[in-house]
């Protein structure tokens, strides 16, 4: 009985491994092999092991292309991601906290705005317009604030749901101890948000780091390139260097992969109490 259950579990696991590997990993393997080929071999678009394995050469070529554009792009994307996600977490938590704890006449309005933020597609051209008149257009801080504005609704929603699970008694104990609002929030509540913060950091980092459209509109120019824009270095009207294109895809996916592996275990914990519990 026991061994049967174990072997069937084993079998299910094995078939799961095979199916998911084929479905989910083969495309990655394809990207990897393409990234290791020379240009001619890559242009055949076949799924095969490269005859000349030149991954390293391609990586070097990709980093050197167009005056080290990828290096600049990595710096820009890192600043963009770290700054906007940090702001999102802090500002979103502040709003979610007061929204959950304090019933005021503002609540229905804020709830509507949050829902609106989730649903409404951003209006690109009017946004450019506003950014120009505030001097934010074509500046990295401007783009950071745009990402914050577009990601705030989701963050507030998730934060609020999580904060609702933190007993009010904790606040009250701190208040009795004489904590002011800032100390209450930053020293008592904020540390308790660890797991939901990790979830938001992961989800929003993926979103911001992989964002293509917003940098294209709000931060144009080669010197301001972010990593997603570098993909278009290898596609021109007449020629696509597939090996370098795929090397580039590989290289710019690595940071997110590392972040995921790093936080993997905590993500589910944050979601359990956050996003999922309405």
């Amino acid at each position: 009985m026991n061994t049967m259950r174990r072997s069937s579990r084993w079998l299910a696991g094995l078939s799961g491994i095979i199916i998911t590997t084929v479905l989910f990993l083969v495309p990655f393997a394809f990207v990897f092999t393409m990234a290791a080929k020379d240009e001619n071999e890559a242009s055949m678009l076949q799924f095969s092991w490269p005859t000349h394995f030149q991954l390293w050469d391609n990586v070097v070529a990709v980093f050197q292309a167009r005056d080290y554009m990828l290096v600049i792009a990595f710096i820009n994307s890192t600043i963009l991601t770290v700054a906007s996600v940090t702001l999102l977490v802090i500002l979103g938590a502040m709003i979610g906290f007061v929204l959950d704890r304090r019933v005021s006449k503002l609540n229905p309005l804020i709830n509507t705005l949050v829902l609106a933020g989730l649903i409404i597609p951003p209006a690109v051209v009017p946004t450019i317009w506003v950014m120009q008149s505030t001097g934010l257009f074509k500046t990295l801080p401007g783009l950071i604030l745009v990402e914050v504005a577009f990601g705030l609704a989701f963050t507030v929603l998730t934060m609020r749901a999580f904060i609702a699970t933190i007993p009010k008694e904790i606040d009250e104990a701190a208040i009795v101890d004489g904590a002011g609002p800032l100390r209450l929030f930053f020293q008592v509540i904020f540390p308790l948000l660890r797991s939901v913060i990790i979830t938001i950091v992961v989800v929003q980092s993926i979103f911001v780091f992989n964002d293509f459209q917003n940098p294209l509109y709000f931060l144009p120019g080669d010197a301001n390139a972010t990593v997603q824009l570098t993909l278009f270095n290898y596609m021109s009207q007449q020629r696509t260097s597939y090996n370098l294109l795929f090397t580039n895809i590989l290289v710019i996916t690595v940071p997110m992969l590392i972040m995921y592996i790093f936080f993997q275990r905590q993500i589910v914990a944050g979601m359990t109490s956050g996003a999922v519990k309405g």
Partner: protein
Amino acid sequence: MTLNRRSHLALMAGIAAGALALSACSAGSLGSSSSSGSAGSVTITMLVDNGDATVKTANGIAEAYNATNSGVTLKIETRAQGTDGDNAVKTKLATGDMSDLFAYNSGSLMQALDPGKNLVPLTSEPYMGNVSASFKTAVTSGSEQYGVPLGQATGGGILYNKKVFAQLGLSVPKTWADFMANNAKIKAAGIDPVIQTYGDTWTSQLFVLADYYNVQASQSDWATQYTANKAKYVDQPAIKGFQRLEDVFKAGYLNKDFASAKNAQGLQALVKGTGAQYPMLTFTVSAYVSMSATAKDDIGFFAQPGDDASKNGLTAWTPGGIYIPTTTKGAKLDAAKKFLAWFATPAGCDAQTKAVTPTGPYMIKGCTLPSSLPVAVTDMQKYFDAGNVAPALEFVSAIKGPNLEKITVEVGSGITSAADGAKRYDEDVKKQAQQLGLPGW
């Protein structure tokens, strides 16, 4: 535990502050940009699209200019190609952060930039005397001229593999009937008669756009009528272009991967001889020449045939221009004009010839082409020499519907009929005309 969390928090706040401070200036440029410009000299920037050939040409120009001229340093910046690039240019102009000079199409696309407001007129500059008259028409808005030509004229027609033609004993067709008769023979020989590459949608427009010589040959005031909302694509003679697309699809003359193939694959098929003919613009010559040692001599070119052999001629694309935005002022404006004065001379042409093999005649007086050019270029030159050339519609009318390439893909792959496609394009054109605020729409 608590302590740990607090230090964590402090760390995060620190990172946030640091990141914000850093973000005040983005990374800018790294690496090998050579010249920072010595004291007293002016550095001007020029924005070009990031196509292989354009970047090479622009860098060649900058190198030649910076080597021979002191006091002004030219630096090249790039932008995307295609409609994304159009948008980038418009946004930059509208927001006032255009580079000191920029390269952009002439004709209708340039008209859409609102030149009267955004560009510095060059009409009275002495070097405009060197610019050919037909180019001047393409950069004229109101009574002013705004640009000098970058690159060479391009022909729109049909590239063909001469070896295949010789093997099957075919001659260059002067009428559409001849063309289709050739196709039947090519197909019988097991070769794809017509290459189409809708993986790059822009390539699907050729049969329609390159038919314009034939349109104006049968109705000389068609462009004026069309601009005035009186001539339509659903009617003769303009509907012919759409019918050509339908004809070759229905006859089964296309390569079987026409729906997904890219321009490069189309050129490759042409060079290899698995496809015999490819409706294309001649600027692709530089791309296919590098594909094989003999491609330069194997590939020829002819204008898109019409119904009447006696009215055979070429539809030509005027090169793009270099423009100065009104946001360039003072010393930079002087430097930009100084650069143009050098550029609009044979020295400027030579710098371009050195960088990239020319694909057609220059539009600046006194410029010469090197000998031993690819055969397709000399084939095209013959039409110019004989005077059988009409500029493409986009250089004589401000209206070009933005969705043409989608519509021609539909017609060319049998999703819709030529008549429906033409009708749909007329709708598209209407939107563009209204947007431009033209009278009569």
